[in-house]
């Protein structure tokens, strides 16, 4: 059953470049549109099953991906340090590398399902602990940025489409495309130079990195964190809102020719109301799907922004793990990032029929 509506979501997702924003021609799946009231539980079950299969696939991929390393993982881990044969044997036993591959795999899956992602080489601590430590910080940063760039993108996108071809539209589309082409880490570094380090007339306005200066308690602490949050969020919003803008713009352009808009105008509705009450709600449906499908890009942005601003989140942790490289930690974080995107997409799929006003009326 999931195979019926999946292609539509994915086809919409196919438009994950700014250029192909309209190429996917996202139309709500026939399933979701014509969903009979009682069919929702079945739809949910199908979606959840699909998500479970995807998660399993991620698990399998992450296992075999990290077995692709040419040579011995222990040598990789110890680097150029001279290690005795006994030490290598100890390491191999510790990380279960002396077992046959299939047994390593079943062990790995069993442990992963019980929430054990191994031990970090670098921190000598369970990977899960490092992840749960960093997760709230990432959620704070990503959540704030996500809400802001979605709101900004949809707001500007729908307005651009409504007056498409006009000066405002061309300016906004051009700016969005330009910002979309800018590497997020570079923008972050520039912002640090200009606003944190300070160029001559301007003093440093924001901290160069981290999440808190320490010491403060209570409300002062909240203000401090917010102060640290400004630049990372600005960077993320700047590089990500363009995509939302283009997606919502082309979704609304698709609706522009609709007869129902002519009817609404013929009723004598103000232009503003035609847009807000009639056109935008219809354009929002495909936009929502696309925003969630494009979350993968946001994850990449978060990793870079956290790295540049030394934000103590999952992305910063990922960078630390990469530079060693601390394979269990990289593996665990890879799983978390992929799982997060899959779960968010499933959530979007589940909410989709509820948002569609044509369903359940």
């Amino acid at each position, binding site marked *: 059953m999931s195979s019926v509506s999946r292609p539509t979501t994915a086809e919409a997702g196919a438009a994950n470049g700014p250029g192909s924003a309209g*190429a996917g021609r996202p139309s709500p799946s026939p399933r979701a549109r014509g969903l009979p009231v009682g069919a929702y539980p079945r739809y949910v079950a199908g979606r959840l099953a699909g998500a479970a299969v995807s998660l399993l696939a991620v698990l399998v991929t992450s296992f075999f991906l990290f077995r692709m390393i040419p040579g011995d993982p222990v040598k990789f881990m110890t680097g150029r340090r001279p290690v005795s044969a006994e030490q290598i044997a100890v390491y191999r036993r510790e990380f279960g590398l002396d077992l046959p591959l299939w047994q390593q795999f079943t062990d790995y899956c069993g442990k992963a399902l019980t929430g054990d992602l191994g031990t970090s080489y670098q921190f000598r601590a369970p990977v899960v602990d490092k992840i749960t430590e960093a997760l709230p910080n990432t959620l704070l940063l990503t959540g704030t940025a996500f809400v802001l760039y979605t709101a900004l993108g949809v707001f500007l996108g729908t307005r651009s489409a409504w007056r498409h071809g006009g000066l405002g539209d061309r300016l906004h589309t051009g700016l969005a495309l330009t910002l979309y082409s800018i590497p997020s880490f570079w923008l972050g570094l520039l912002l640090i130079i200009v606003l944190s380090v300070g160029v001559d007339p301007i003093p440093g306005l924001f901290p160069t990195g981290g999440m808190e200066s320490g010491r403060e308690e209570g409300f002062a602490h909240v203000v401090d964190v917010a102060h640290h949050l400004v630049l990372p969020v600005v960077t993320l919003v700047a590089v990500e809102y363009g995509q939302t803008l283009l997606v919502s713009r082309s979704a609304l352009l698709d609706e522009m020719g609709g007869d129902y808009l002519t009817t609404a105008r013929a009723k004598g509705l103000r232009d503003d109301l035609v847009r807000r009450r009639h056109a935008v709600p219809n354009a929002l449906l495909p936009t929502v799907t696309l925003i969630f499908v494009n979350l993968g890009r946001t994850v990449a942005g978060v990793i870079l922004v956290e790295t540049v601003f030394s934000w103590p989140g999952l992305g910063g942790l990922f960078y630390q793990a990469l530079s060693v490289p601390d394979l269990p930690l990289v593996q665990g974080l890879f799983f978390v990032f992929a799982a997060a995107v899959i779960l968010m997409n499933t959530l979007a799929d589940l909410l989709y029929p509820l948002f569609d006003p044509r369903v359940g009326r």
Partner: protein
Amino acid sequence: MTAEATEGSESTTGAEGTESPESPAKGAAPGPRALARQRRRATVARFWNEYRRHRAGVFGLAALSLFVLVALSAPLTVGSDVESVTNAPGQPLESPSGRFLLGTDQFGRDLLGLLIWGSRVSLLVGLLAAALSVTIGALIGITAGHFRGWYATVMMRITDWFLVMPTLVLAIVLATVLSRSLGTIVLAIGVTTWPTTARLVRAQTLAVESRPYIERAKALGGGHWHIMSRHVLPNVMPLVLAQTTLIISSAILAEATLAFLGLGDPAVVSWGGLLQDAREAGSVSSGDWWYLVPPGVGIALVALAFTLCGRAVEAVLNPRLGVSR
């Protein structure tokens, strides 16, 4: 580039046109080959006329030509010894001056030279990665559209799965576990970015295969290979090339990102690598903007130029889209 695609798609119809009664051969009928060539030229001209109307696309094309020219002529203008650390011409971290227009890096190498030299790697990796990605995507898209049944189902499930995966994270992991080289970077970007193309190509393949002339080809004994290579491929080529232009721009960004994260080939200079060097040399805290700004501008301009071209090609091929005008 795109001209060839349109040529390709027309060659099929051109060849058919000579056989069918509504063939618009005017005057003395030339041979089928000459006729096909004539049609191709007309299509290219028509495409170019349409393309020219998209000012952003023309601007992108001009910028690209300039970049490619500069990159190709780099051995003549700056010479391959700009990369050499041992006999660097200047002092470490000099600010821009008459001698070094963009200053020098921490080894005293001329940054303008490095920037021009680095453009070669960025463009090359972008092109190769996009070529790999589009090849995989087109192959899977065409076969999944042509062979229905379980093969298509399995392929599309895999495509969907790749589609929601955080592409760059996957590429980072691949680049981490494989050896450090440009080939790895190309591979990592190529095998993670193909699903978009596969989706689009499959949809187009399904549309093409439902046309009567495919049925005719089958009736005349055309096999799978004949239909896919002679009829479907030329028809999806324009789409594939528009897609390539767009993927090049994200591949260039991805290359810069991987290099910045320290996963690039340490032996070659690329724009992303320059940014990583700049960060490691402490140019952020010391405010050495002239070290940081130019590589980023380069990346952004090239990526933007490819995006603008891709959008213009897309708009020409599918005017209903209403993008990029």
